[in-house]
């Protein structure tokens, strides 16, 4: 009996768990790491980016995002949309072609791979024969032309990838058609470019590497014209009227050829080296677009003089008399131009450039060609992200003030709306306003609107202005002087080089109710800032907090304190610093908390912690947590525990800095470079030689960095007796101790005069000595205490002060609940002793039930060093769910994780991208968007079933969308079983990779189609499916 009841309870609990928790990686924010290909579909108004890791990402209007990942771990080298369709073809560097489509399913489009294909040459042919170098998607929408390294052009029918051997254009055919005198019959080399005649789809231009271009008539299967360029070919552009061809070459020249006329040989109209005289680099891409009235736009990528500007990444835009060389921050991957008009054939309106680290969009219709701010693909890493902080449910007032402060910073952006508008964003409006704050290496804090699918930049705060640094502002922004040639103009914001690494932001805490912000950095600086809507000039006075407290025998070998500007500084509207604490020694700040109601800030480093009263601007408490035998902590900024990655980065920065300083100081910079290189090598050698063995030893009080303060917490609780609750401060150290202080605050009316005092109340040494990473006080109901001012703003139920409070101490190894005020252990959950994983990140979250609106539970969200996410219930500290999330090797990803208060989280999947995930079943932010097939769809070869037909095969369609492929296969099998008349030919090897059964629209993709009867087979299948429709 008892067992049955127990079982019932457990299944009840399981059901509640299902309603509360669910793990999804929902959307990737930021800029894709290592993009490798770009394409734009004017008909869909969608932008597609391929990356070196095999991902393909589609973006349309803000919020319209799709992402796909190739199974092969190969770089995407080219992406092409099929004209007027929702399909696209990708070419990977393993020479495989992939067909993707946007399939509507339950009202939302999904990006699905529907087929793959690798070109097979004749037996015995070298691989270069079929190595694809150029792809042309023909405007008919069903033909692919694949130019190869061997110089052949293969024709393939899509979407089924059927090779049309009879239509291939072999190199021999082309060579034979050439005039006898051409280049002594030398090889034409690979196919560099394939272009369709914009006015005559029967003609295709084949550009060969050596320079020769041939216009081929597809119907007559013969060459129409030759364009005898003599330089290595880089790219070809066929002008819109079909009358001219522009070719760009590796010597930095471009030529214009007349192709409209009669005769088999084209005339060279013009040949120019735009940045001439001296040898130039190749012009890798050329585009010319006409305007309604007036001269055309010409876009050239590259072509800079090799010696003087060979390292610049430039795109030149030439329009009439205006000539600008846009100077980008990183290597140019590709670019395209968006055109006005209903059919997108009007004037060029925007230039979209994908460079290695950002996407830049230039408004070509506004004077001065300003940059349009991107709503997505924002380079999060324009300076490396050093920390992040998430604040949920921002009050509207603060939100608007931050937005308006941000708007004032963005005046140099174009006012034009975002020009890429494809798809419909169907995701519901964000239920609340969420802010994500990222701290950066250059001392800036960026505010992002993290409410929805788009991580939109709101405001940028720079803390560098408070300090004196070596760098003069804007010394590298060499704004082009008059008459400079080439006429450079810097665009883009990616700037990974920090002038002073001490400025790096390490901890952020924002109070969303009061608008107070505190930011702490690498050199022990803690700034308290206040939101001010007006610009203000003020002096920021520094208070030094000596964390050593007379501890002797230590020598700080790390960096010095930042110097503070003594004269008043003009701060723009926004967050303005009004108080500054500098820790001594100036070690990196490792913990920071602000209590806006009590007007206190507490901060910790590897040496101790302090409490600062920012109303009276004095230090209330300084406590040294150092173990006297811990020499390491004293010597420098965590020098021995820093990651190899970090040190490599620093080494590179040193090299770079010494290069930069070459101009200023000519002395011994070469020696510096050498030194940096030597250090780099030594570090690498050390990394390789480290033996893979681990010491098994209990932690002792003599371990290094036991005094490092890991967490700080303010609580109004019963610290010393059970009848009076008092403000208290809690600190947890790396050595597993918890220190509690009772705070005495003067009454509100005397807050400005009477001193705040702190008295030591309790110390707890955890026996297992693992670092304390979190401290939470639970109220009488077992819920975490509300945030300061939360109750005052009526946004939280006030804490239960009647029942017994409990103290939850989270160490890296276990969760432990103690009673208060008498600290005795009540419950615990062990993690490391059981499965060897350790807590890396922890947050308190509220999980709402997806089923009933008013049910919810508090819980701890935990990320372990194994990359697993756990939810631990409160106050019972029971493990609820566990999901693998991050690869355990991805140390920086794990370290970057930040949790929201509603069960979501973010972590960096690359230096420039946040993955957003959700542990909550209710609170999920994911892109939901629909892309419809353009209206003027040409007829396709594959018959398509009528959409929206009710379908018998729809039976199991209530399944989750991510299982479409599996269920589609099942439906297909079902269909096959019930139609025995057809298609069981033994050699018919076809793989149906997909079929959306939701609307019975099937698109069959078949691999290895070599038999001619397969088309018939497919039609039979199609028929059989349609047979299910009543």
């Amino acid at each position: 009996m008892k067992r049955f009841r127990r079982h019932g309870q457990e299944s009840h609990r399981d059901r509640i768990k299902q309603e509360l928790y669910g793990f999804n990686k929902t959307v990737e924010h930021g800029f894709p790491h290592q993009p490798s290909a770009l394409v734009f579909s004017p008909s869909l108004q969608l932008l597609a980016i391929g990356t070196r890791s095999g991902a393909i990402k589609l973006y349309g209007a803000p919020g319209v995002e799709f992402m796909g990942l190739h199974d092969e771990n190969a770089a995407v080298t080219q992406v092409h949309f099929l004209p007027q369709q929702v399909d696209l073809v990708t070419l990977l560097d393993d020479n495989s072609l992939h067909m993707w489509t946007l399939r509507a399913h339950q009202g939302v489009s999904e990006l699905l791979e529907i087929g793959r294909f690798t070109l097979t040459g004749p037996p015995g042919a070298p691989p270069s024969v079929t190595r694809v170098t150029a792809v042309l998607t023909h405007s008919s929408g069903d033909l692919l032309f694949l130019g190869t390294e061997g110089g052949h052009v293969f024709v393939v029918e899509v979407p089924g990838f059927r090779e049309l051997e009879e239509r291939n254009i072999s190199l021999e055919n082309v060579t034979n058609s050439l005039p006898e005198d051409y280049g002594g019959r030398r090889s034409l080399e690979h196919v560099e470019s394939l272009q369709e005649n914009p006015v005559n789809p029967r003609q295709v231009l084949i550009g060969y590497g050596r320079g020769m271009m041939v216009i081929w008539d597809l119907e007559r299967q013969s060459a129409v014209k030759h364009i005898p360029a003599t330089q290595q070919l880089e790219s070809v552009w066929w002008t819109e009227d079909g009358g001219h061809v522009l070719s760009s070459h590796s010597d930095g020249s471009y030529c214009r050829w007349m192709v409209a006329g009669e005769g088999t040989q084209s005339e060279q109209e013009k040949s120019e080296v735009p940045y001439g005289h001296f040898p130039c680099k190749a012009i890798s891409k050329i585009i010319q677009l006409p305007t309604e009235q007036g001269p055309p736009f010409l876009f050239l990528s590259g072509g800079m003089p090799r010696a003087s500007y060979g390292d610049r990444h430039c795109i030149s835009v030439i329009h009439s008399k205006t000539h600008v060389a846009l100077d980008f921050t990183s290597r140019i991957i590709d670019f395209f131009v968006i055109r006005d008009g209903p059919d997108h054939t009007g004037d060029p309106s925007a230039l979209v450039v994908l460079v290695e680290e950002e996407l830049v969009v230039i408004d070509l219709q506004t004077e001065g060609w300003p940059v349009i701010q991107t709503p997505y693909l924002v380079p999060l890493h324009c300076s490396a992200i050093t920390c992040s902080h998430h604040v949920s449910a921002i009050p509207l007032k603060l939100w608007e003030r931050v937005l308006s402060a941000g708007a004032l910073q963005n005046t140099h952006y174009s006012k034009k709306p975002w020009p890429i508008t494809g798809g419909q964003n169907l995701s519901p409006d964000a239920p609340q306003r969420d802010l994500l704050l990222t701290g950066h290496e250059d001392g800036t804090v960026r505010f992002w609107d993290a409410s929805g699918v788009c991580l939109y930049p709101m405001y940028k705060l720079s803390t560098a202005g408070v300090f004196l640094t070596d760098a003069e502002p804007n010394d590298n922004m060499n704004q082009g002087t008059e008459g400079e040639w080439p006429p450079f103009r810097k665009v883009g914001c990616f700037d990974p080089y920090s002038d002073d690494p001490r400025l790096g932001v390490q901890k952020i805490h924002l109070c969303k109710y009061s608008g107070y912000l505190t930011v702490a950095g690498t050199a022990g600086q803690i700034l308290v800032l206040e939101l001010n809507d007006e610009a203000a000039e003020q002096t920021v006075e520094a208070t030094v907090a000596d964390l050593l407290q007379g501890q002797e025998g230590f020598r700080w070998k790390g960096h010095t304190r930042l110097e503070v500007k003594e004269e008043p500084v003009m701060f723009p509207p926004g967050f303005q610093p009004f108080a500054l604490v500098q820790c001594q020694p100036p070690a990196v700040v490792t913990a920071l908390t602000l209590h806006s109601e009590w007007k206190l800030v507490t901060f910790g480093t590897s040496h101790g912690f302090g409490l600062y009263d920012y109303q009276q601007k004095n230090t209330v408490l300084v406590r040294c947590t150092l173990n006297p035998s811990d020499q390491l902590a004293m010597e420098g900024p965590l020098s021995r525990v820093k990651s190899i990655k970090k040190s490599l980065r620093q080494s590179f920065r040193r090299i770079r800095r010494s290069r930069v300083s070459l101009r200023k100081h000519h002395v011994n910079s070469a020696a510096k470079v050498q030194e940096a290189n030597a250090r780099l090598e030594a570090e690498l050698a050390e990394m390789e030689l480290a033996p893979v063995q681990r010491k098994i030893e209990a932690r002792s009080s003599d371990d290094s960095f036991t005094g490092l303060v890991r967490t700080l917490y303010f609580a109004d609780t019963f610290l010393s007796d059970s009848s009076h609750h008092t403000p208290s401060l809690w600190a947890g150290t790396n050595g597993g101790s918890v220190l509690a202080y009772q705070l005495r605050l003067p009454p509100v009316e005397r807050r400005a005069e009477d001193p705040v005092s702190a008295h030591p109340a309790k110390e707890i040494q955890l026996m297992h000595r693992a670092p304390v990473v979190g401290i939470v006080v639970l109220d009488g109901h077992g819920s975490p205490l509300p945030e300061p001012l939360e109750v005052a703003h009526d946004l939280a139920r006030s804490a239960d002060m009647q029942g017994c409070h409990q103290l939850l101490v989270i160490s890296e190894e276990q969760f432990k609940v103690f009673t208060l005020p008498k600290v005795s252990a009540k419950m615990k959950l062990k993690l490391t002793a059981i499965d060897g994983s350790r807590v890396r990140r922890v947050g308190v979250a509220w999980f709402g039930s997806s089923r009933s609106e008013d049910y919810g539970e508090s819980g701890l969200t935990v990320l372990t060093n194994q990359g697993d996410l756990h939810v631990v219930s409160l106050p019972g500290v029971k493990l609820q769910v566990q999901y693998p999330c991050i690869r355990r090797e991805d140390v920086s990803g794990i370290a970057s994780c930040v949790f929201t208060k509603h069960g979501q989280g973010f972590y960096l999947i690359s230096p420039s991208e946040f993955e957003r995930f959700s542990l909550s079943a209710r609170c999920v932010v994911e892109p939901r968007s629909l892309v419809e097939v353009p209206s003027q769809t040409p007829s396709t070869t594959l018959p398509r079933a009528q959409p929206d037909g009710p379908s018998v095969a729809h039976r199991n369609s209530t399944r989750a969308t991510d299982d479409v492929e599996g269920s589609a296969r099942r439906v297909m099998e079902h269909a096959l079983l019930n139609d025995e008349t057809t298609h069981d030919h033994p050699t018919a090897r076809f793989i149906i990779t997909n079929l959306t059964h939701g609307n019975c629209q099937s698109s069959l993709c078949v691999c290895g189609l070599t038999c001619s009867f397969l088309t018939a087979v497919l039609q039979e299948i199609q028929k059989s499916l349609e047979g299910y429709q009543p």
Partner: protein
Amino acid sequence: MNKNHRVPSNRTLGAVEVKSKFGAEFRRFSLDRSKPGRFDEFYRLLQHMHRIPNVDLLVGYADVHGDLLPINNDDNYRKAISVADPVLRLFLQRKEEADYSAFGLDSLTRPKKTVLAAMLLRPDANRKKPLVIISLPRDFRPVSSIIDVDILPETHRRVRLYKHGQEKPLGFYIRDGSSVRVTPQGLEKVPGIFISRMVPGGLAESTGLLAVNDEVLEVNGIEVQGKSLDQVTDMMIANSHNLIVTVKPANQRNNIVRSGGGGGAASGSSGHSSDSGTSFYGYSSPGTAVATTPAHIIQNFHPEELESDEDDEDLVIEVDGEAMPIPRTSSASCTIPFIPRYVPHLDLRTTNGALASHNRSGSLGTLSTADRGLEGRSLEEEGTVITL
């Protein structure tokens, strides 16, 4: 001092008369025999009675034989109460002084010669070794043990290392390696974790129960297969206060022959663990291997003490409710006279973590007075060698 005025048989069943001596002062009070309470309460009571609230004490009592035995946990406290006949005579010492004296035998014995005549454990005639080799009873404590011999395959060994306080490093390293398993599909090479190095003088080395190239199979009952080296390291460290490692010894020649099977070479059936490192053992001639590395298992218990656990005091507080059965060896330790701060007491502290240090004072002063200062004497010298 050993007055030993035995009170005649008018024992009051209800109360225990306590006579407590601290320095030159005596206190007398009584306790309810049926409800002795817990040791920590008793300890506070003593502090209160002597008005020495902040002094750390070593509590000892004279048993019926006139031996001075320690009271430092609930079990031996209860034992002391139960044997009091009816007077319980207590001797309190300052912990600091005792600690100090721990470094020399004489400094403690000299002022208290009469009592400490009793400290020589027991007047056991069957002890063959000369008395000088026997250390202070306080040094008798389990350091390691082989457990679960009856349920494990003979090729495996489950070793428990007791880490009391900080006196001695555990002292070993582990590494990645590969091990060969017998599977239905044939031999299969699987990754494994191996002991890679022993720290000379460390606990692991001095027990002799673990050796370089032993494959680690479990940590505190949890299999390590599929776990990374770092994970296993963290697991071991998290359990370091009471580490139970199941290993497959690289040297399989000294296994216990339980079922009358073959001799030392009978191990291959359950999969011989081998990798580049272990192969050394595999190929060395059996004769030398056996001769040079006898599988001596060093414990600090004498066989006869193992038998003495018929009294009900073997309720060792198991740390964190491990799945392991309570090892008999450690329960035996309770009957050994020992001075405070050893296993049971420490185990108590470990279970409650910080609580213990807190309960005692709630003040800052007592934070982490980690029990330390134990001599680095090699344990083999005093310990008895039991060859299984």
